[in-house]
């Protein structure tokens, strides 16, 4: 559930108070909010919660409603407070819910086609070095991949772990670019 959807369930004043509590700078508060939410979702998914986003949002809602009471007295890492609330919400979730496991959702053909188009566009936006690196990094599979990556690292004069980090950061950029591209294409009529 995106923050926008989450916002509907929350009173505006509670949400504003939550952001103020996280940081007086609203932009910084937004970044902290997103990081906390991502961590909650990651932990809940790791625990096998089938609706990690909903449980995470419910946890954030509860914190937001309590901020008025705790903001003067709470001491310590604020993010940890979210973890404590999330544990309670997750316990409640475990007590009331038992759903079948999910399988990989099939991506529809049109969406897949659009993802491919966006990938091509985003690859074109990469710097030549980055594009070359990512193309080489993903070209081979299995043993050939390991050999290739060693060779690329040698050519660039860096360690394999550094190569991996660089490639994954480019991959992260690609992800952001593709998601933006998909949002734009969805917004078009």
């Amino acid at each position: 559930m995106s923050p926008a959807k989450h916002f509907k369930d929350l009173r505006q004043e509670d949400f504003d108070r939550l952001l103020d509590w996280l940081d007086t700078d609203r932009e910084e508060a937004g970044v902290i909010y997103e990081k906390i939410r991502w961590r909650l979702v990651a932990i809940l998914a790791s625990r096998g919660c089938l609706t990690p986003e909903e449980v995470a949002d419910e946890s954030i809602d509860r914190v937001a409603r309590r901020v008025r009471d705790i903001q003067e007295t709470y001491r310590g890492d604020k993010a940890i407070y979210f973890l404590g609330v999330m544990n309670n919400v997750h316990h409640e979730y475990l007590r009331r819910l038992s759903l079948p496991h999910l399988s990989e959702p099939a991506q529809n053909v049109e969406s897949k086609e659009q993802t491919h188009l966006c990938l091509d566009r985003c690859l074109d936006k990469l710097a030549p070095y980055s594009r070359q690196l990512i193309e080489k990094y993903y070209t081979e599979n299995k043993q050939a991949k390991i050999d290739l990556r060693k060779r690329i690292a040698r050519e660039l004069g860096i360690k394999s772990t550094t190569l991996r980090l660089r490639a994954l950061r480019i991959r992260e950029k690609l992800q952001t670019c593709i998601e933006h591209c998909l949002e734009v294409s969805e917004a078009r009529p």
Partner: protein
Amino acid sequence: MNAAMDNKQYSQDVSGDSIRRFLLGQLQPSEQTIFEQQLFINSDLEARVRLAEFELADDYAFKRLTESETNAFRERYLLTTDRNQKLNVSQAIRDRFLSESVAEIKPALYQRLMPWFDLRRPAWRYAFAALILVLILGTVFLVTKEPLIVNRIWPDRFKPRPHASPTPQLMNHPAGSSSPVHDEPSPPVELHESPLVVSLTETSSIDQSPVISLPAGENAVVRFQLLLKDGAQGVYRADLWTTSGETLFSAGSLKSFGAQPASISFDVPANVLKSGQYQIRLTRVDDPAKQEVSQYYFGVQ
């Protein structure tokens, strides 16, 4: 300061394998608790986990996971929309770059091409509708504007029934017939009787019309020769009417022959005629500006 150092140290101590097992929900409970707390306060660890998410999605898309990892991936990793989107991109990257496993790419290529040939797509429906519309309009245009082309295209069996010709014997038994020759003896050809020739002039009154006796015989014909009063050459159409206003017979594309006076000739099967009064209307068909009707009358005993 010390806490930050400790966190950084912890992040460095955590192996890539532990991060992977966290994402797949395979950490021991004691490891899980520590890992969760560190994830909340350790930005370095968070950054590593974020990158590991991409790597795991790539490994799944490239089919590099073991069977248990694959199952755990489906049960624990693919629980959020964000991660599903990561997997979609990983699969797109696989399709784009992986040259080795052609077999894996082929279905993807097939799936990419399939929508273009899916007849359920609205685009195909519109295309077919437009095609049918064009065909209908084209046919209408062809029929209304270019009748000669239609005559060439349509098979003979769809053409209008031939009108009576001046010489039915010639029509039925052409001299240069190319019909196949059979060895077995053919039945004797039934010969037409000689037609009864009736010459008619344009009369203004039915009272002055001639009265004819019909020839006997199943194939008997009456040949009408209509004298044209102005002698104009042209193409005519003759219609045989009863006095009650019913058309019995029509003959088209009749060419006038002779000069002074010119006449029109056509044959009518005798069996269509009964005792009574008849009218023949002659119409000029080759020049619309000169359309005129001449009327001829005759009676049958």
